[in-house]
């Protein structure tokens, strides 16, 4: 259950990364389809990262001398990570939900006061979450896996941004 929750959070983070990295790169007015594609691209990237992480996890567990202990240690670490990630995700989702209210001021306020700053602290939250998770880990493998997944998750936005930037520059070069 804990790992499933982490997977869902990773997918949500990927979706938002995909949306964010697509923003400001399509000047059309009817750009919903474009953003949906961006979100799906992010979710897909998160699946790759999750899948890769899962393979590593299984390999580490398979080669571990004490798989039972490692599994318990991993679950406990993941549970501690959720204490950081869940409130952050809830705050982000609550602010996105607030944008349903048909008030331009309220919607803008969610951007200025919450979504913007929350985007700004995202890397910090990820680092804090993983460090909180592995801080009391009993095994080195757990620490290694935590840091490995953190690196992968932090690189998702960078990779998506590079990809979208390449597409955008190609499009602009075709115009000028």
């Amino acid at each position, binding site marked *: 259950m804990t790992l499933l929750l982490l997977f869902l959070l990773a997918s949500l983070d990927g979706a938002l990364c995909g949306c964010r990295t697509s*923003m*400001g*790169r*399509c*000047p*059309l*007015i*009817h750009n919903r389809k474009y953003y949906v594609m961006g979100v799906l691209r992010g979710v897909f990237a998160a699946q790759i990262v999750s899948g890769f992480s899962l393979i590593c996890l299984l390999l580490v567990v398979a080669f571990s001398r004490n798989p039972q202990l490692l599994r318990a240690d991993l679950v406990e670490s993941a549970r501690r990570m959720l204490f950081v990630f869940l409130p952050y995700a809830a705050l982000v989702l609550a602010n996105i939900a607030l944008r349903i209210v048909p008030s*331009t*001021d309220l*919607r*803008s*306020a969610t*951007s*200025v006061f919450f979504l*913007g*700053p929350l*985007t*700004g602290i995202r890397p910090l939250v990820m680092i804090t979450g993983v460090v909180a998770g592995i801080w009391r880990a009993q095994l080195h493998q757990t620490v290694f896996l935590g840091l490995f997944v953190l690196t992968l998750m932090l690189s998702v936005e960078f990779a998506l*941004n590079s990809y979208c*930037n390449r597409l*955008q*520059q190609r499009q*602009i*070069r075709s*115009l*000028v």
Partner: protein
Amino acid sequence: MNLRGAQPTVCFLRLTLEQNSARGSALNFLLAVVVSRPALRFVLPARAQFLYSQLVFPSWNPAQPEISDLVVQHDPKTLQRLPVNKPEILKIFERFQNKKALRAIERIPAKEGFLDPAAVDRLMLTVHWEMQRLAEEFYHGHRVLKLLRATIAAMRSSGHTGPIRIVDVGCGIGYTIRWLAARSMLHKEDVELTGVDLNSTLVNEANRLATQEALPCRFFHGNAFSADLRGHIYISTGVLHHFRGDSLIAFLRQHGNETTQAFVHYDFQPWALAPFGSWFFHVIRMRTALARHDGVLSTARAHNAHTLVSAARAAVPELTTGIYGAKIWNTPAPRVFHALVGFRPALVPQLKQSLGRMLGELP
């Protein structure tokens, strides 16, 4: 938005900067003392802290121009694109010790000392695409539409029966007009949606995008106030702060022709935290160095309500002018954008009725 052609050219700009520099030297001495004693920073009065920030963040100094004001220049009469001397514009920012601007300009390719126009155009398109994202995020189209609906209704009730032409001055890639064309029914109410800019690359892009989505709007390269392009309602976004001193009055004076019924010019609202908020937001949201630099500097250069209203009243006394939407709801909290508005006096009573307290500062 691009108004470089209507703006003073580099020569005029140099003159303005020289006037500022004499006053600056005394301040710089004071600031050097402050900077050498960081503890002072926290006990200084607000004005001194602001000056401190000017030295610490030279890119926030409102006396300097924005990069986009300089990298594209046009002949004010023929509107032809002029070559831009890279070392010359670098020199302008060197005088402000603005390393951010210098870095952003250094990255633009040049040929024989002149900026490569194609590279500049590509950069401007990237920046304007990015800026559209901010307009989307802040629901700018909805805000403009609300005000336009009320204005059009007031015009119709005061007897205006013919077509109404809305002109977006310095439209850039025409987001506002394209949004209005796509998301409102204004074009079915005999309202013509147009945008005008002095940058032909941006105008071509606006027309390309409008054609791609089959939007009922048009964009023109030229002077928005010329006889063939003039309209009944003028709108703009983030344009006013590009005009400094007398050029602000000169710009507003152009609204004084007999066809003008109203104008709505949105721009950043200056207040103590605006540059900080803008800096943070631009770091998070914007990607190009030029957009980050100019976006923050724009908030530092924005005119306050008093300056805008005084200039408007001096320039177009025949219109009733004021500030629209400065505060959020009924609180003292300022909006990011406020709008300088002007209306024919006959429209004002109905506008006051329909817009209520948002027009509270209109006489």
